[in-house]
């Protein structure tokens, strides 16, 4: 009987990061698509893909210039109220591909769309896809033409799935595009930008209080900008905090173009590491952060969960707000079991493999995208609770959390909220 392929963390650790099995490399096999992994395999299909992310600039609209198939599932997003009347399409046909005539239509289409809108948009994002990647379209030039015609900023937005594993994947590129509208401005020492997410951190995240306590008056997040004018003030920031690695290029752009340096932080679920990270940040800023109370509250939430679910045995997936290997390590360090992880192994998360192997060598790691995942059977897993949309899909009879909400869990607040939610789902 066929079964889903897996490796234990011990095996993976012994093999090392330069000898990861082909089953974990997405370019070595066909990619299995299950409801569990839809957002991961096709970043535009759910959550914040390029299309939704591209509209993070307040009052912006998007024209998707592509074959019909690329825009088809946009109605999932456009049915959300905040995207009402913000997506438009210019559909390409075979003649367009052969002659490139669609490029001439873009400025006219932009003008026609803008003339029909009650309120002028702040920016028009032109989203192009794999076809134009192969045609080598110079969309910057086309956007400049459109700008001349419509008198508004027009920016390209590249939804090139073909380059997903390249140096600058679509989700990295779109972050750069979003901030490319900012112009140099006079710096204010008490302003900071949080880069990384397209939706805000949880309101009770201690990072806000810590920064305010360090003398920061204004903390910008693109998703909290009420209008385009507020968005533009992001260029006044003294420094940027990069909370997601895909924003690194955007942060480098800030540094090069606007002379705003950046500090990179990680989303973690290990309270000791979160504290270390905050202390490191405090020393860079030349201040002191008192994080004891935040840490205590987070660890209390862990204990409160343990009271209701002392024998928790987790399956941790990758379709959630966190790194599955880091979260699995945190759960093990808190004294829980983690028999299974569904994840994509990268150089960045392989660093957790050594410690995972020490704490739980038999933890099985499955490759979500490998063809044999069609045969995944939860029967003998020993899992009784799950985190992640994928894990929840594989263990439909277990309590679990999707933990993939738009509002971003971060820091001690993220840990506290996670365990509060876990407690809620088993009670």
């Amino acid at each position, binding site marked *: 009987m066929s079964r889903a392929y897996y490796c234990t963390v011990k095996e993976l650790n012994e093999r090392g990061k330069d000898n990861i099995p082909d089953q974990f490399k997405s370019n070595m096999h066909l990619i299995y698509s299950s409801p569990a992994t839809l957002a991961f395999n096709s970043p535009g299909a759910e959550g914040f893909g390029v299309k939704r992310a591209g509209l993070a600039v307040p009052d912006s609209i998007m024209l998707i210039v592509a*074959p019909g198939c690329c825009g088809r599932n946009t*109605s999932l997003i456009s049915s959300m109220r905040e995207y009402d009347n913000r997506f438009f399409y210019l559909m390409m046909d075979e003649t367009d591909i052969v002659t490139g005539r669609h490029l001439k239509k873009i400025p006219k289409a932009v003008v026609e769309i803008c003339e029909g809108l009650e309120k002028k948009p702040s920016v028009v994002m032109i989203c192009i896809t794999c076809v134009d990647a192969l045609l080598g379209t110079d969309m910057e030039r086309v956007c400049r033409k459109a700008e001349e015609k419509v008198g508004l900023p027009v920016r390209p937005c590249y939804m090139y799935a073909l380059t997903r594993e390249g140096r600058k994947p679509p989700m990295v590129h779109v972050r750069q595009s979003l901030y490319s509208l900012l112009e140099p401005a006079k710096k204010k020492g008490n302003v900071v930008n949080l880069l990384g997410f397209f939706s805000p951190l949880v309101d009770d995240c201690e990072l806000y209080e810590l920064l305010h306590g360090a003398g920061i008056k204004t903390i910008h997040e693109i998703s909290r900008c009420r209008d385009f004018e507020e968005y533009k003030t992001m260029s006044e920031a003294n420094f940027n905090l990069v909370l997601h690695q895909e924003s690194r290029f955007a942060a480098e752009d800030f540094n090069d173009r606007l002379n705003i340096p950046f500090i990179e932080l990680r989303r973690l679920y290990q309270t000791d590491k979160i504290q270390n990270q905050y202390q490191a940040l405090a020393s860079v800023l030349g201040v002191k952060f008192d994080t004891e109370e935040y840490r205590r509250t987070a660890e209390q939430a862990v204990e409160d969960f343990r009271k209701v679910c002392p024998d928790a045995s987790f399956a941790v997936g990758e379709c959630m707000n966190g790194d599955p290997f880091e979260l699995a390590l945190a759960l093990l360090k808190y004294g829980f079991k983690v028999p299974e992880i569904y994840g994509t192994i990268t150089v960045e998360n392989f660093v957790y493999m050594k410690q995972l192997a020490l704490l739980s060598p038999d933890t099985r790691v499955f490759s979500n995208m490998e063809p044999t995942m069609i045969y995944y059977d939860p029967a003998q897993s020993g899992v009784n609770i799950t985190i992640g949309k994928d894990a929840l899909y594989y263990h439909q009879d277990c309590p679990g959390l999707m933990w993939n909400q738009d509002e971003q869990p971060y820091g001690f607040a993220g840990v506290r909220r996670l365990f509060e939610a876990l407690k809620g789902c088993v009670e």
Partner: protein
Amino acid sequence: MRGLRKYLTPFAPDQSGAVSVLFELGGIVVICDAGGCTGNVCGFDEPRWFEQKSAIFSAGLRDMDAILGRDDRLVAKLEDAAQKVDATFAAVIGTPVPAVIATDYLALKRMTERKINIPVLTVDTDGMELYDKGEEKAFLELFKTFAVRKYPVDEKRVGILGMTPQDVSDLAAADKIRDLFRQKQDMQAVCYCMGDGLEEVKKASSVSKNIVVSPAAIATAQYLEKIFGTPYEIAYPLVEELLPEMDYTNKKILVVHQQVIADSVCRELQNRGAESVQTAGWFMMKKELLKAGDIALRDEDDYIELVRSGDFDIIFADECMKQMTADFDGMFVNMRHFAVSGKLIGR
């Protein structure tokens, strides 16, 4: 402007139509894309995907695969999957990327068949045509590949050709049709590609006639008639349930749907006393059903102009089209078309 959409999202593309035909048949279905097209098919255009496991894969093409035309890599991946997954056939479905690099599907088929011991189907969809075009190609490829043997004809069996969620917008439609034929005609209805598997496709020559419920299946019905002598009719058996009970006498009505359903609705409305029924469609208009005055819609402006100039009392169309003519003051009846809105009847 031609091709510009301000109200409607693009309709289901040809690759979604092709997958819709093959989805339930137990094959390895490989969408020859970088990932986005598979996400669109699975996450949006194939409602059955959320309810049943299926071996749908993305080829996971990357820029260098396309630039260098590395078909051998795809063949190797398919060979690997065929060893791991129990499947009765493999199908490769085209998307814009292979269309741009002019992938030779026939060569791909031959290369793959040399490596794996199951039949290989290829469908040269390109993501720029509409779903019905992809369905038409997939239906033909499917029946040409598997319906090769002549079986004795069973007068109590009727084939239903063209059933896909894209066309009938109702996952229960196949069961309803089976019940209808069993109760009213004491016949067994075989709903190809929706409920009845590959074995029934192989025995296609055994049905006494085919009922074609979608224009995309007309070519296949004609093929089966030519090869096996199976006659066919074009009609949608569940048309009555699409029409709400009301007085249609002397009403001027517009019907917008795929051509077979629109035609069946048109005839039913005429029987119920409608003064005139105008049919229009965004999709293929086959000459077998085409009547004088039928309108093929291409852009949003075509529809807006038709409604504004038509003076209709009632419009039968998918609800998502309502927003295009907010000033229409007649009655709008929501007649779901999954390929248009991505929504099923009653959901």
